[in-house]
């Protein structure tokens, strides 16, 4: 019995050691971005990227906020499409999910299949691109960045699975009291689905926040670049952006510009707001995770 206990302790220590090492693999790469953005440019070009804080300074951030137009524009666009898109998606998806979750709705199966089929088969990039840019002329519109994520049927089905668990008696008794479907949806379904709304809302928000492909395909105007796309362009073309910023306010010689650290600082600023959402996400996520089968 004693040897057994000791054996268990050894296993526990080994397991924890393993997980601590593993966590390091996930955290260190992210920390490196932090270290680089707080290090002076001279130190970077002399000694390479820092493994820890080295010659700590805030020049990179000062530099970005001295010429804030680029990043403020990008933040505006990202916030607009993220929150606007999430609101619109939740509105459309919860209404549709409510309908296909009602067992007494006669066309429930047909409409569910209508949505589900798009998960199995899709037109892909070329027809979608032609539709968006040539037929509907949505290039350089916010709609072009919102629409591609509106057709997410996966989350719709997660919502439906959740709503199907709401006891039918609640809806029946509301109907006997004379409530219409609009009232039931607003007064009962939405409040009762809060955990699912939180989970799907956060997932959608994250998807919008991180999306950059629609911008790459449909947006040419620099003022309409969302954060992620601005970062993408910047990584591939840092010098161009630096010149851009310099044209707004002259800052002297190019060699003094904190290009390496500013780039990473920009990256940190793009991730920033999502860090605040992260704890909420964890809280709701495991609860709202169950994805049921489509049948039934």
């Amino acid at each position, binding site marked *: 019995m004693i040897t057994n206990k000791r054996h268990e302790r050894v296993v*526990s220590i080994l397991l*924890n050691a393993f997980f601590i090492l*593993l966590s390091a693999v996930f955290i260190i790469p992210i920390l490196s971005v932090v270290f680089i953005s707080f290090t002076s440019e001279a130190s970077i070009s002399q000694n390479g*990227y820092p493994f820890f804080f080295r010659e700590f300074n805030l020049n990179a951030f000062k530099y970005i906020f001295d010429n804030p137009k680029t990043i403020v524009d990008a933040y505006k666009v990202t916030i607009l499409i993220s929150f606007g898109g999430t609101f619109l998606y939740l509105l459309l998806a919860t*209404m549709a999910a409510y309908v296909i979750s009602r067992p007494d709705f006669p066309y429930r199966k047909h409409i569910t299949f209508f949505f*589900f089929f798009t998960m199995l088969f899709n037109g892909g990039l070329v*027809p979608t691109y032609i539709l968006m840019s*040539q*037929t509907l002329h949505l290039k350089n519109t916010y709609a072009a960045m919102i629409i591609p994520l509106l057709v997410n049927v996966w989350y719709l089905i997660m919502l439906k699975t959740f709503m199907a668990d709401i006891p039918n008696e609640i809806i029946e008794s509301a109907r006997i009291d004379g409530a219409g479907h*609009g009232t039931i949806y607003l007064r009962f379904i939405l409040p009762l689905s809060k955990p699912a709304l939180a989970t799907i809302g956060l997932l959608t928000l994250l998807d919008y926040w991180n999306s950059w492909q629609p911008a790459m395909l449909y947006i040419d105007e620099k003022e309409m670049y969302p954060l992620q796309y601005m970062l993408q362009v910047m990584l591939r073309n840092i010098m161009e952006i630096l010149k851009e910023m310099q044209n707004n306010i002259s800052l002297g010689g190019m060699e003094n510009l904190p290009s390496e650290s500013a780039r990473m600082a920009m990256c940190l600023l793009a991730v920033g707001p999502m860090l605040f959402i992260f704890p909420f996400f964890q809280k709701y996520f495991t609860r709202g995770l169950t994805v049921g089968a489509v049948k039934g």
Partner: protein
Amino acid sequence: MLKQLSRQNAAGRKRKDRGQALGLFLMALPMMIVVTIFSYIPMGGLIVAFKDYSYSDGLLKSPFSDPFWKNFEFLFKSPDTFRIIRNTLGYNLAFIALTLVISVAIALMLNEIRSRKALKVYQTTMFFPYFLSWVVVSYIVYAFLNPRLGYLNAIAARTGGETLDWYNTPEAWIFIIIFLQIWKTVGMNVLMYYASLMSIDSSYYEAAAIEGATRLQMIRRITLPFLYPMMIILTILAVGKIMNSDFGLFYQVPMDSKTLYPTTDVLETYVYRALIQSGNIGMSSAAGFLKSVVGFILVLFTNKVVKKINPDYALY
């Protein structure tokens, strides 16, 4: 009289039900319209693969190509095609196998951690990369691979190893891409597996302990079987998407570097480059058509296989 009344009532209810159904239908309509326009119409648009598309004529007026498989003929004559299909399938198979083994192993080990606090910390850190976009990941990768300033070359220089021009070394990217995919998604997968372990009744373990089972035996006979449904579902979904790739991982992370195409070019990036960069809509649409149709067949096929093994695990 009474009969008549009840009949009237029934008719009234029926009318009301029909009204209710219409009301419900109207609530689903906005989403249906969005899906019709932006999902169903592009499906019909796949016909572009059989046309000589010109921007001025538009999709409907562009003439059919002659012979109608002309775009596909070009595609299959292109020396790139074999490489693209090999990369797409090869990476996806590696992802499926490694994700399954690694996520299940980690979930099983997490299940043995007793401290709730430690558990939460490990889960959170593993889940974190899921929150980052591929653009942000490409910055992190760049910090490691930058040939002049990056960490990997700095470590190599200090330890006397070989420094590499990473963005021009295609062989290295086989490992880099597989590592990154696992790194970014494993936390999410572990979370899903771990969530399905939560439902195990502790009485199973108690009974096993009375019988004198060791910890390892319990893992093999109790914990692991509880993961089978999730393992099967996630694997079917992955097999169904075997023609798809994460565009960000294959395009943005290698920085669209031409020398890396031999190990980073996949269907997804090929379709994009042919469409946007070289304007070759014919090739692009033919490749896209293949991707959609083969992907569809694979989903149907895997679902059928699973249905035969155990209908409960089938997707539909």
